[in-house]
C-alpha cells in the first residue's frame, strides 16, 4: 500500500478482514469499534494510525454500507456529530501529533463527547467580533466570557473554543483556538430554552477557566483561520447529507397528502408539487456535488446546499400546517426537555415548523451564506468595511 493511495479493492479487503476477525453481531460494541478504528476503517481518508488509511474520502460510504449490511454496530454518529464533523477535521489539520493521538480515537469511539464554544450573544454572524478573553498565565491560559447556542454542552467532556488573546490588533488577528475541558470548575452550563419549548442548546459561562497551553490548537493569534476549517465542515455537514428521493422534510407532507384525501385542495396541491420539485432538484444538486467531490473536482455548489435546505424545510413545514388545518392549531408538547439529538421527522408538524426556523440561523445564517456566495463564488466586491483594520478594542459595540 505504501506510496500508493488505497483503492476500493484495498478497502473492501480490509473490511472483510475486520469482519472475519470480529463477528459484527456477537463482538461487544466498543470492542468492535476499537478494532474498526485500529483497522483504519473509522474515517478512511484520515492517516494510518489515526483511524484511517489515507484513502479517498468517497470510499467511506463503501465501508459504511458494507459494515451496516453485515450488521455491525456504528458509533452513533448523530449523538457525536460535533466531534466527528467539526472537532475531528480541525484537530487533524491543526493539532500536534500528541493532540491527535490523545483526542481522535476516543472522539470517534464516542467515549468522549465534544461541543463547540464559538458563538456569543454579541458575536453571532460577526463571529470574529467575539469578546471571550484568554489571558496567558504561565503555562496556562485563563479564560472568561460567555458562549451561547452550544449543543450537547451538558454531555460534553471536551469543547473546541475560540477566545480573544489580543484585543490590541484587528479582530480577526487576535483570536486563538483551544481545546477546553468541560469539567473545569469555571465552566457553568445552563440550558437555553428555545422556540420549540425544549432546550436543545445551552449557554456556557466561563469564569477563570484554566486551559494549559498544550491544549492550544494552532498558533497564538491564528484561531480565526483554524476556525474556518471547523465552520466549513459544519456547513458541509448541515447541507450535505445524502437523501433518497422524497427524503427529508417533504416525506411527511407527501405522506399526509396521500393518506388524508379529505385534506386536499387544488391550491395546496400545486404548492405541494412545487415544493416536491424543489426538494427533488435540491436533492439532485446535492448528489451532483457528491459526484464532483468523488472525482476530486469539488464545485462551489456545496455552499448553496445549506441555504437551499433551510428554505425548503421552512416552506414545507409551513405548508404542512396549512394542510393539516385544525390539527395544525395544536402542538405536541411544550415541556421543557433536553433532547440529545434533533429528530425533525418523529415529531408533530408544529415542531417541524418551529424547529426549521433555526435552519437559516444555526451554522451561519442564510444572510451570511448569501454574502459568501456573492463574494467568494460570484466574485462580487465586498461591502465597504470599517471593522477590518481597527484594533478590536476600539470597535463600536
Amino acid at each position, binding site marked *: 500500500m505504501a506510496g500508493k493511495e488505497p483503492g476500493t479493492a484495498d478497502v473492501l479487503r480490509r473490511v472483510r478482514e475486520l469482519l472475519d476477525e470480529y463477528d459484527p453481531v456477537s463482538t461487544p460494541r466498543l470492542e468492535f469499534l476499537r478494532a474498526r478504528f485500529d483497522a483504519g476503517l473509522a474515517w478512511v481518508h484520515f492517516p494510518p494510525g489515526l483511524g484511517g488509511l489515507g484513502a479517498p474520502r468517497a470510499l467511506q460510504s463503501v465501508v459504511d454500507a458494507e459494515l451496516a449490511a453485515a450488521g455491525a454496530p456504528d458509533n452513533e454518529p448523530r449523538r457525536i456529530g460535533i466531534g466527528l464533523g467539526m472537532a475531528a477535521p480541525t484537530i487533524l489539520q491543526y493539532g500536534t501529533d500528541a493532540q491527535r493521538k490523545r483526542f481522535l480515537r476516543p472522539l470517534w469511539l464516542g467515549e468522549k463527547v465534544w461541543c463547540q464554544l464559538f458563538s456569543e450573544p454579541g458575536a*453571532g454572524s460577526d463571529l470574529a*467580533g467575539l469578546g471571550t478573553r484568554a489571558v496567558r498565565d504561565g503555562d496556562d491560559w485563563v479564560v472568561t466570557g460567555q458562549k451561547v447556542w452550544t449543543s450537547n454542552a451538558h454531555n460534553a467532556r471536551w469543547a473546541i473554543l475560540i477566545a480573544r488573546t489580543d484585543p490590541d490588533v484587528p479582530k480577526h488577528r487576535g483570536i486563538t483556538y483551544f481545546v477546553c475541558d468541560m469539567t473545569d470548575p469555571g465552566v457553568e452550563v445552563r440550558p437555553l430554552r428555545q422556540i420549540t419549548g425544549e432546550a436543545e442548546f445551552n449557554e456556557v459561562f466561563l469564569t477563570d477557566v484554566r486551559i494549559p497551553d498544550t491544549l492550544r490548537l494552532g498558533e497564538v493569534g491564528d484561531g480565526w483561520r483554524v476556525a474556518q476549517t471547523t465552520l466549513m465542515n459544519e456547513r458541509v455537514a448541515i447541507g450535505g447529507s445524502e437523501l433518497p428521493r422524497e427524503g427529508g422534510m417533504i416525506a411527511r407532507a407527501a405522506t399526509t397528502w396521500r393518506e388524508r384525501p379529505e385534506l386536499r385542495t387544488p391550491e395546496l396541491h400545486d404548492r405541494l408539487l412545487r415544493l416536491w420539485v424543489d426538494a427533488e432538484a435540491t436533492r439532485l444538486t446535492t448528489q451532483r456535488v457528491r459526484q464532483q467531490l468523488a472525482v476530486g473536482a469539488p464545485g462551489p455548489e456545496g455552499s448553496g446546499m445549506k441555504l437551499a435546505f433551510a428554505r425548503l424545510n421552512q416552506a414545507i413545514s409551513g405548508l404542512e400546517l396549512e394542510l393539516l388545518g385544525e390539527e395544525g392549531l395544536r402542538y405536541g408538547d411544550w415541556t421543557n426537555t433536553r433532547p440529545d439529538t434533533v429528530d425533525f421527522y418523529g415529531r408533530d408538524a408544529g415542531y417541524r*415548523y418551529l424547529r426549521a426556523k433555526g435552519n437559516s*440561523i444555526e451554522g451561519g445564517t442564510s444572510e451570511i451564506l448569501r454574502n459568501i456566495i456573492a463574494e467568494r463564488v460570484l466574485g462580487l466586491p465586498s461591502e465597504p468595511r*470599517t471593522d477590518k483594520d481597527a484594533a478590536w478594542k476600539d470597535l463600536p459595540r
Partner: protein
Amino acid sequence: MSSAGLDLLYSDVEDDLRSAVRDLLADRCPASAVLARCDSDTPYDLDLWRTLRLQLGLAGLLVPEKLGGQGASAREVGVVLEELGGAVAPVPFLGSAVLATSALLGCDTGDGRVATLLGRLASGESTATLAVPLSTAPGSAFPQGVRADARGELSGRVSSVADATAADLLLVPGIGPDGPGLYEVAADAPGVRISAATPLDLTRPIADIELAAVPAARLVVGPTATAALDRALLTGAGLLASEQVGVAQWCLDETVNYLGQRRQFGRVVGSFQALKHRLADVWLEVVSARAAARAAADALAKGDPDTAVLVAVAQAYCAPAAVRAAEECVQLHGGIGMTWEHPAHLYLKRAKSSEIALGTPGRHRAALAALVDLPAAV
C-alpha cells in the same frame, strides 16, 4: 363593486379607543408577563379580561345600546383587535366579544332569551364562546358533530374551540329533529366536559368540548341558525384580519428597533441593504394589509353588500402578511429570536395559527373565485 364608499381611515373616536386599550396593555400586559403565563396553569389573564369587559366595556362593542351594549361597530372591534394582536394579549375577546356575540346578533334579538344573553355578554357578566373548531371557514357546511334529541339535550364533540376554557356560556351549533340550531349551554352544566388542548398558539388557548345529554336551550333553528353561524364566522374572519395587522405591525416595529441597535461588523445591522430591502417589503405588506383589514371592518360595520368579497380579500391578504412579518422577525433577530425568553415566538405562533383560523388563505381565495366570477378549471 367599487367600494368607493368605504371609509378606510380611523376616526378620532377610534384613535381614542386605541390609545385607551394600548395604554392599558402597555401597563398590564407586557411581553414578559405574557411569556410567564404561558408556563403557568392560568393561560388567560382574567384580570385583564375583567378590566377590558367591565371598565372599558369592550365586550359589548357590537351589542346595540338598547340591549345594554356600546352600540359601536366592527370598525371599533377591529381597532381593539389590532391592539390585542399587537400585545398577543391572552384574553378571550375573539371567542366571546366577536364570535359568540356575532352569532347571537344573528338570532332574533327581539327574543327575550337572546336579548338576555347579549345583555350578559355586553355587561361583562358572562363570557361565551362559539363551539366550532377555530379552523372553521365562513361558508362551511353546518357542523354535524353535535346532535340534539327530542328533549333538546345535546350530545357530541367539538374539537379545537377557541376560548372555551374561559367561557361560562357555550353557543353550540347542533342538529336537532327540526334541523340545524344554535343552542345555549352552560359551561358547568352536567354532561359538559371541556378539556384544554395543547395549542400551537400559546396565547390563544383551545379546548375540546364533549357533550353527553346536556340540557340546552335552543335559540334559533333552521335557515336562520345557519345564517347566524355564517354571519359569526364571516365577522370573525373579517375582524381577525385586524388582529393580524396588529401582529404584523408589532413584528415589523420590533425588528426595526432591534436592527437599529444591534451591531455586527462594526455597523448597525439595520444599515445592511439586504435587510433594509426585506423590511421595506414587509412594511409594504403591512400597509396594504391595514387597508384590506380596514375595508373589511368598514364593510361589516355598514352591512355593505360587498362584505363577503372584502372579508375574503382581507383574510387572503392579511393572514400571510402576518406570517411573513413574524417569520422575518424571528429570522432577522438571529439567535435571540429563536429563544423562549424573547417574545418573537409568541407572535410567530399566533400568526401561523391565525392563518389556519376561520379559513386558510387558500379557502378564502376559493370563496372569492365564486364571488367575483373567476371560476375554477373544470
